[in-house]
């Protein structure tokens, strides 16, 4: 049987508006995923380190402050340096269309803008994560 998808929900930068991050964390948990929420003010280094420790398949970043162009490229670079490019990165928040395209070109799997439904996000993560199959039943 497949084990649940593991997701790290992270809130990078100085912004403290965590309503969205918390709703997403709860919705993914309700959808049967294992969710680790980092809490606030995480640097890209802290997030990549947590992703490594927690062995997640997906990192979800919530960014509302306009700092995504500084934060996301650093995070993607750190993932490359750590050979973690199989980890899918999704970004949610206030991301203008042009920036969303830029982020995708840098390897972000999806960008969810305001109004995106929880169901769409859950389905995207399910589709994008390779279910880990274990050799035997536990």
């Amino acid at each position, binding site marked *: 049987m497949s084990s649940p998808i593991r997701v790290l929900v992270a809130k990078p930068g100085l912004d403290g508006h965590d309503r969205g991050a918390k709703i997403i964390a709860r*919705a993914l948990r309700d959808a049967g995923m294992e969710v680790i929420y980092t809490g606030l003010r995480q640097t890209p280094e802290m997030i990549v380190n947590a992703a490594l420790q927690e062995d997640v398949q997906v990192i979800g970043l919530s960014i509302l402050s306009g700092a995504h162009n*500084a934060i996301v490229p650093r995070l993607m670079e750190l993932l490359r340096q750590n050979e973690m490019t199989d980890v899918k990165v999704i970004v949610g928040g206030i991301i203008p269309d042009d920036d969303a395209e830029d982020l995708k070109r840098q390897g972000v799997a999806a960008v969810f803008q305001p*109004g995106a439904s929880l169901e769409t996000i859950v389905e995207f993560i399910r589709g994008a994560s390779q279910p880990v199959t274990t050799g035997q039943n536990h």
Partner: protein
Amino acid sequence: MRTTISGVPVDAVYGPEEFPDPAPAGQFPYTRGIHPNMYRDRLWTMRQFSGFGTPEETNARYLYLLRQGQTGLSVAFDLPTLMGYDADDPLSDGEVGKCGVSIGSLEDMEILFAGIPLADVTVSMTINSPASILWAMYLVVAEKQGARWERLSGTLQNDILKEYIAQKEYIYPPRPSMRLVTDTIEFGASHTPRFNPISISGYHIREAGSTALQELAFTLRDGIEYVDWALERGLAIDAFAPRLSFFFNAHSDFFEEIAKYRAARGVWARLMRDRYGAKDERSWKLRFHAQTAGCSLTWQQPQNNIVRTSLQAMAAVLGGAQSLHTNSLDEAYALPGEHAVTIALRTQQVIAFESGVTAEPDPFGGGYFLEHLTRDMEAGAQDYIAQIDGMGGMIAAIERGFPQSEIANASYKYQREVESRERIIVGVNGFTESEQQPIELLEIDRTAEARQVRKLEFLRARRDSNRVAASLDALRETALHTANTMPCILEAVRAYATLGEICNALRDVFGSYKETSIV
């Protein structure tokens, strides 16, 4: 069953139950308004929250808004300023000037208010953890303009409790933070009799996903906490209570919002008179600023946001607000552009000068539905207040995560209702359109960060570094003990110590706060 946006059940029709006639506006407990004639005598202050990029750019926006008929200023600071970091701090990377204006020292504050007479214009500053430092900068700029502190009028947000509860822009742990707030209340009571040293805020609690009742109840309970600390400091209730001000959200459920403002006034007046024995009528009157609900703005069909904002602003006016900010149609995307902010200001002007709703205080007062909602809102707030009293006060409640989890539960429940289309949001989960028309957006100049960093370098090179170091040492020493920190902060500001340096001096003594995240 039909419910308000906060999930409160609403019966089919309300009839004449046994509602006592509410006292007229201007009479205790001020349910119908704090002044007998309300807007017949004086309109609310139209105060658009604004700030972006460098102080030079924001100063130009302020001069523009004043020329357009705005009657007060409201400063939005960027995240590094809100969190007490200099523009050249590594943690500020990518954030300088993005969500507001970057203010790093007295020099930036001088630029921000160049050509704006602080003796005549009232200014509100949305700043919390470093509030006393930004206020000190403001006071020194006013002094340099020749304005006497006794004449200054305005508002410092300075509400740290709602940061732990909702917005999360805190630096130090709760108790030293409360000491800093109490320092400003005490300093204001003797130096700035017309300035509101605090704006006790429900706005951010609501934006974090609370119900209307939670917004009201947690805000009033925060107010009680500030009062208790000021009394503990030795201030007399009537020496500071008249200058406590409030800030509420103006959300979409029209009558529920009006009931919330009415209940706020009634509950606060009774608390002040009966719980604290305030004798001065001004201590009983709850004055508030309102801002339309940022969280209600949609990315889809953004022009609809003008309509949402108009209805929300109308609720604030019919609820007796003393000042008002109307959001701009583009704020689900970015900070407002000039065209969008002008429409938002015009919305207030249309309500004020065309709609006729200013003719009478509390025109819905006495209506069955509104009186019913008001009564339930008051009772619900009193229940929450008693519950938090039972926990030992708001700091204890925050430490056990009580308001945070109440809000998180309400927020998730609401989102689920939107998801299942029990609640329709026009353009988002109903009446959708496949094509989205692009709107014009404000672009923050990408060179703002570099310019702010360079300005700091020049400043550090030319100021008297011995005076800066001595002022920071004195501040650390004072922070270790119990004297009021404001005089030391004023001296550090006058010496052109930077915001980050002053906050770091206090971090040395108070430490930094880390919350336990509640999902």
